[in-house]
């Protein structure tokens, strides 16, 4: 990941992005391409893992990074259940589900805002980015 000297110093430890298949790695790669701040995230996949193994993988990564924020893709998915399971014994941990690229881009460019504020801004940006666009009505 590049180190962009014009960007603010990353605030706090990396956030984890845990998602199905290659989604997390692809989204973090896209964040890097767009902002050069892919280093604010640590991507993980649940691929080929049972629930207990996903729990163990995530717990290990959270502890290694001291992560305070986890983004997951699907509310009813195994990734999200694993992340929420950690809330039990990790006060202060924040889980955001339904993550999309606009949300991660917002978080990546968070500046020095607190985790809670940065997450709120990311959720607002990600939610508002989802919209229906249609072509111009016919001129007939």
């Amino acid at each position, binding site marked *: 990941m590049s180190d962009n000297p014009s960007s603010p110093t990353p605030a706090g430890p990396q956030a984890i992005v845990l998602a199905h298949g290659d989604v997390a790695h692809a989204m973090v790669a896209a964040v890097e391409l767009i902002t050069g701040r892919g280093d604010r995230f640590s991507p993980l996949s649940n691929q080929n893992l*049972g629930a207990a193994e996903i729990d163990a993988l995530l717990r290990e990564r959270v502890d290694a990074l001291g992560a305070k924020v986890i983004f997951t893709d699907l509310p009813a998915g*195994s990734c*999200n259940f694993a992340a929420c399971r950690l809330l039990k014994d990790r006060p202060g941990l924040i889980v955001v589900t339904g993550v999309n690229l606009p949300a991660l881009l917002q978080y990546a460019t968070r500046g020095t805002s607190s985790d809670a504020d940065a997450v709120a801004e990311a959720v607002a940006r990600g939610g508002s980015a989802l919209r229906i666009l249609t072509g111009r009505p016919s001129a007939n």
Partner: protein
Amino acid sequence: MPIDLYRIDDRLIHGQVIVGWGQPMDLGFVVLVDDEVADSEWERELYRMGVPPEVGLYFASVDDAVAHLEEWRADARHGILVTGDVDTMRRLTERAPAIREVDVGGIHYRTGRTERLRYLFLSADEEQALRAMEARGVAIIVRDVPSARPLKLGELSGAAKTA
């Protein structure tokens, strides 16, 4: 409308269950049969938090599931019953003869298990338990998502290799 799917899946409730199977069948409720989850308020709340609010969610031990199965089978909504391991489904089918078909949807790698498919690893005991269910007349179907070709247990043996 009987329960549409009886599934063994070590991820229990997750994307394949709620979205992959659930959306095409207009899923109305899920029964999660797991003694440990049924006994933990935290785990029950965890699953309630993630499952869409329009989908009913029931938690049951094997004993509870045996007691309430006919009630769930009479429900007008489409339902899925899921267990996290072979042994729980074995115990359930032994006491609930109404279950005639079981879908093996996902059992992942763990020491002592052999790879049969990308999403299916079985220990010798698990395979034996599945074959015992089959011998009792319960059809065992291996399929992770509805669009996949359903496989019978016998079709896996030739493809077996050590993980």
